[in-house]
């Protein structure tokens, strides 16, 4: 993809982010942070590419950097989604009476 297409997606996504985040209820701001944490670990994609490659010059170093990156990002992905799930399960409406 050329730079301008990528930039266009980025700028549009910033606007989408702006409007979507303002619509999040303040009561859920902590789960918002936990889930943004989890999704920003989509950076694991880069770590997977590095870890998958090998063979060429620098490939071995890159592979290990990638593998450590996968471990760190996985902590975040699993931890982030699980803790968000745990928090969201606590939000209950009045049910008694």
């Amino acid at each position: 993809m050329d730079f301008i297409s990528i930039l266009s997606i980025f700028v549009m996504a910033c606007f989408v982010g702006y409007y979507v985040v303002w619509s999040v209820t303040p009561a859920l701001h902590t789960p918002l942070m936990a889930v943004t944490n989890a999704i920003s670990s989509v950076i694991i994609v880069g770590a997977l590419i590095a870890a998958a490659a090998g063979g060429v010059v620098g490939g071995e170093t890159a592979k290990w950097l990638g593998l450590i990156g996968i471990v760190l990002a996985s902590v975040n992905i699993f931890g982030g989604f699980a803790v968000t799930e745990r928090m969201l399960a606590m939000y209950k409406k009045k049910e008694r009476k």
Partner: protein
Amino acid sequence: MSALPTSVRFAFAALTTLIAAPAFAASGEMAVNPLAALAYLAAGVLFILALRGLSSPESSRAGNRFGMIGMAIAVVTTLLTHEIASIWEILIAIAIGGSIGFVIARRIAMTDMPQLVAGFHSLVGMAAVLVAAAAYVNPGAFGITDAAGILLPVSRVEMGLGAAIGAITFSGSVIAFLKLNGNMSGAPILLPARHVLNLGTLAAILGLIGYFYFVPSPVTDTPWLFWTITGLAFAIGFLLIIPIGGADMPVVVSMLNSYSGWAAAAMGFTLGNTAMIITGALVGSSGAILSYIMCRAMNRSFISVIAGGFGTASGSGEKGEKIDRPWKAGSAEDAAFLMKQAETIIIIPGYGMAVAQAQHVLREMGDLLKEEGVSVKYAIHPVAGRMPGHMNVLLAEANVPYDEVFELEDINSEFSQADVAFIIGANDVVNPAAKTDQSSPIYGMPVFDVDKAKTVFFIKRSMGGVGYAGVDNEVFYNDNTMMLLSDAKKMVEEINKNLG
């Protein structure tokens, strides 16, 4: 745990098969594989839906599932569209990280959420640095070299920014974690000439990234360059956060949230990956908006928070006079008696309540009062906890229904009709000095009009201590205020006994 809706599961299965079929044919050509690009786009859209779901608690759980599906699509697509030297190493790495994350998420106490989030931010930051470093040492695997095998100049800027923002996120979050977790004092650490030092370092990082762009062949000509940028960025993250005091940590955590997003976006540019770019933009905006909300709730400018040093010297000049002023002490019996008679009660919890672990007994108190026919509402200030929305989670954990919990602007007009304002573990957010005293460090901060309620109960450990901002509170001395001096949990337990 309930099962996923069947339609969602079906869609996921369909999508993954769709990607899987052509992927093996066109392995190694991720950038030109339209189905892979489509899958990353789908992941990005699912992440948008994950945040969209948080607009109400009912839709939030479905939103979180969308996020998980999006992540699964991104990971599976990447694995299917690349030739993998050893899948086992990758799966083991995911299993190690995943189980650590899962165990932490299960065990963490809700009061410790701010530390957890700060810790998680540091991991995203470090992962961004590692990915940038991997792309630097093996650019071929990422398809960012020219015909001669030299790193493309645009990619150098992107990876330089990615590594720098990632490193700042990492070291900044580590400091935030240590401060929030109490391993390090919350007091600001002020280095001499820190502004010059910080701005100089930032300028050096940007200058070096510019230089990185113009070097003919960075790996052979200037092998030190990339690592110097990264090293300086680690240092600046550390320097930026140490002067910021404990009271400003909600802003810091939100800001680092934003940085972790920008780091992911920068790496998304390097890889030309839409899922990463969309996510980075979402997370970046999210953190920025939360920082803005937190600053507004404290009436502080973002720049003054970043400059640091808040809470060091404020209000110390007038400590002598306040000791002698008369105030009324109340007991648990008084409080229980008056609250039973009341029609409406508004409870204002602050972080002190969480420190005393009083949220469960507080909810019991609410239940007992509701049985007496009293209307009970909870009022939450945006900076009530140690991070945005923290107090809401703590009350939700204590089984307080979320429709009894109100935000500042929604409930502030109701104090004039309320019989009782019950303040537990809060102080600065009910201080009228914010409205009247221009010399006060908290002047201009939006506060609850508790003094308009008929009676105010103020639970406080002792008369000596003051809030985070270090200022005295007029409410203590009002005629309609009764001070309940005790540990918050013990006091509420006593009140409950008298209510029962």
